[in-house]
């Protein structure tokens, strides 16, 4: 793998816990790699798997999904839905030939700035290890994958 590969990671955060954890990492000057770009949603339950697909197919090498800890969701229980969707999503990715470990779910409370920064660091290194994502559609348009599958059936 090339040494100068810098992975690009999209991170989804919830407004109440993990985005605030990112704020806190900042306030605490906790350094982490600049490879991650965060997107704020109100809740991890807002995470439409399409967003992850979009990120991965458009150039991200990994996606980090973050939310409140189970049982601490601002919206009572919606992070459990995020959890289930993430599991399904990973399975789907695997079936598409994409390493499901490129998607990672991390729970971080508003107080866990240090923890979130550490987890981001770990994930960036994990993705760096895996190398650039060779998303099928980047070589061929998505349609051709479908056609290929149809042929093979």
């Amino acid at each position: 793998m090339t040494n100068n590969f810098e992975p690009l990671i999209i991170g989804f955060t919830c407004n109440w816990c993990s985005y605030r954890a990112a704020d806190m990492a900042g306030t605490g000057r906790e350094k982490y790699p600049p490879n991650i770009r965060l997107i704020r949603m109100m809740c991890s339950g807002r995470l439409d798997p399409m967003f992850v697909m979009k990120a991965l197919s458009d150039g991200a090498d990994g996606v980090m999904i973050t939310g409140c800890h189970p049982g601490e969701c601002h919206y009572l229980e919606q992070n459990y839905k995020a959890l289930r969707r993430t599991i399904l999503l990973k399975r789907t990715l695997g079936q598409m030939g994409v390493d499901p470990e490129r998607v990672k779910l991390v729970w971080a409370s508003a107080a866990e700035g240090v923890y979130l920064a550490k987890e981001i660091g770990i994930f960036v290194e994990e993705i760096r290890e895996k190398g650039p994502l060779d998303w099928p559609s980047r070589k061929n348009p998505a349609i051709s994958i479908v056609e290929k599958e149809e042929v093979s059936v």
Partner: protein
Amino acid sequence: MANSKTPSGKPRIGVYVCHCGTNIAGVVDVEDVANWSAEELKDIGVVLSRDNKFMCSSQGQELIESDIKEFGLNRVVVAACSPHLHEKTFRGACERAGMNPFFCEMASIREQVSWVTKDKKKATEKSKSMVAGAVNRVVYHEALEPIKVPINPTTLIVGGGIAGIQAALEIANTGHEVYLVEREPSIGGHMAQFDKTFPTLDCSACILTPRMSEVGMHPNINLLTWSEVENVDGFVGNFDVTIRKKSRCVIEEDCTGCGICVQKCPITVIDDEFGVGIGTRKAIYTPFDQAIPNYPVLDKENCTYFIKGTCRACEKFCATNAIDFEQQDEIINVTVGNIILATGYDLFDARKMPNYGYGRYPNVFTSMEFERLCNAAGPTNGEIVLRDGVTAPKSVAIVHCVGSRDKNHNNYCSAICCMQSLKFAHIVYERTGAEIHNFYIDIRTTAKNYDEFYQRVLDEGTLFVRGKVAEITDVPQNEAEEGKLIVQAEDTLAGLQRRIPVDMVILSVGLEPKGDSDEVAHQFGISCSSNGWFTEKHPKLDPVSTMTEGIFIAGCATGPKDIPASVSQGSAAAARVISYIEMGELELEPVRASVIEEICSGCKICNDLCPYNAIIFIEDKQVTEINEALCQGCGTCVAACPAGAIVGTGFSNEQILAQIEGLMMDFSVPEVV
């Protein structure tokens, strides 16, 4: 949604990059970011881009205002600190310039870039991509109006313990109406069962009953005892509550509370509720003499009339014909603006620790049994005696932390047991002169005058043994132990295993969430911690609010507390409610979901996802609808809708997808294979 503030035509975006002194500019080349945005993002609609020392200063805000007017900007992106800090500030600037404030978007290049990144080049690149994300996103912003809800000035308080009583009086005294709902026949809660209160040793009844009568007589308080909330609908400002007023078999309007029915009732049963199984009551009863309200309740399970169809002694003797055997439960519907839950706690069931022998050995008592035992209105009129009802104990062991600080049971400290156990030691000392051993893990006497009380009990000669009691048995190993209860523990300070023979053991059982706290939380749309206590909006800065607007919590329902803390929380919750009532209406963030009826296929996938019950299926139209006032804006349904029929304002698919694309504008990925 269209109004005068809707921008017309193409987006005209202004980008503002803040230096934040050197906080951002020290790491990020802000000038480069601003220039790059003006150049590279102009196709998207950026018409100007500036960098500025402090965007949040009045000068910075005025800059935005004048640019909006001068350059006809209809969207603004500020790359500065976290939106949680200054989003309101910049939205305000936009609004003052006549723009809808929701056309403003922030990129947090301080918290997410300059403060957390060492490499300046990479920091600048990340900032650029974040600005690109924000610019891409802001294109899809819509004009929004804050949601305003009127606040109904009536309040529902659930739970008539000391916290609920305090809250009710505070609100009622400001002239607003209160419904106080209590499940038991009388208000007063656990405090009414106590004899003395620590550390002042005030008689519990003496300080509580005046408050109770005040509640009973207050013109603004509708007291509903022997009642339970059945259903809650609606949202902050406007809750529809259904209350079941259980049948007492007593006509309240006619009852004078004279007590002749209780006197004449021939059936005496063990009182498992107020009397915690150690006292007795009649089949028609008031739980205690000073009960508020003072009209009795008929216990149908034990009443001879309900069992055999005869007796009717109570009815015969009632001078006002207030007994009504046919009385049915009554359903009461009320509309309230706010709700305070002060539902209290349960006690740990000591039978879960068979090694302590509660239920096996008669002279092992729980703390609440002992409270009743030493209470002047209790079964022994306050005399401290063994279970035989006669013998005074010569030696007493008091066991702290029963069921608390124990991973096998409750893994938290119950907060009150140390002081309660010290109080017991004092009472036993004062009334019996018995030898007292207190077994503790740690003594926690943190509040005002608590440690002074500990000193006093030490001075009285109570013997403290630092060690969690291992077991209590009546099987003797030597003569001194014959006929005694033996408390076996490691005296961790002396470093030896000890067996201490005593006559009586008092188990200071811990506090637990109410058995039905999960259901109650669900009913009111709030959450419980894994332990089962209600979760505060913020444990430190907002301890009496919940994540659900208009629902407040007070007292032990949120965790173990002593009386002063419960009273403070009652007042605090009342203050929050009063301020809402005074405001008259509440502005809510317009982040909401709504259904596009034409696209909705009626599949109902979203129907079960909402914890706030905001999603309703309209049978006639076979489509789903979302109640805007109930919706809290989490967006879970938006993500779930397979037809894409649900849109979420502020966080629409277009906005997020556009932001992703923007963030992908990246310079650091080298073109290598």
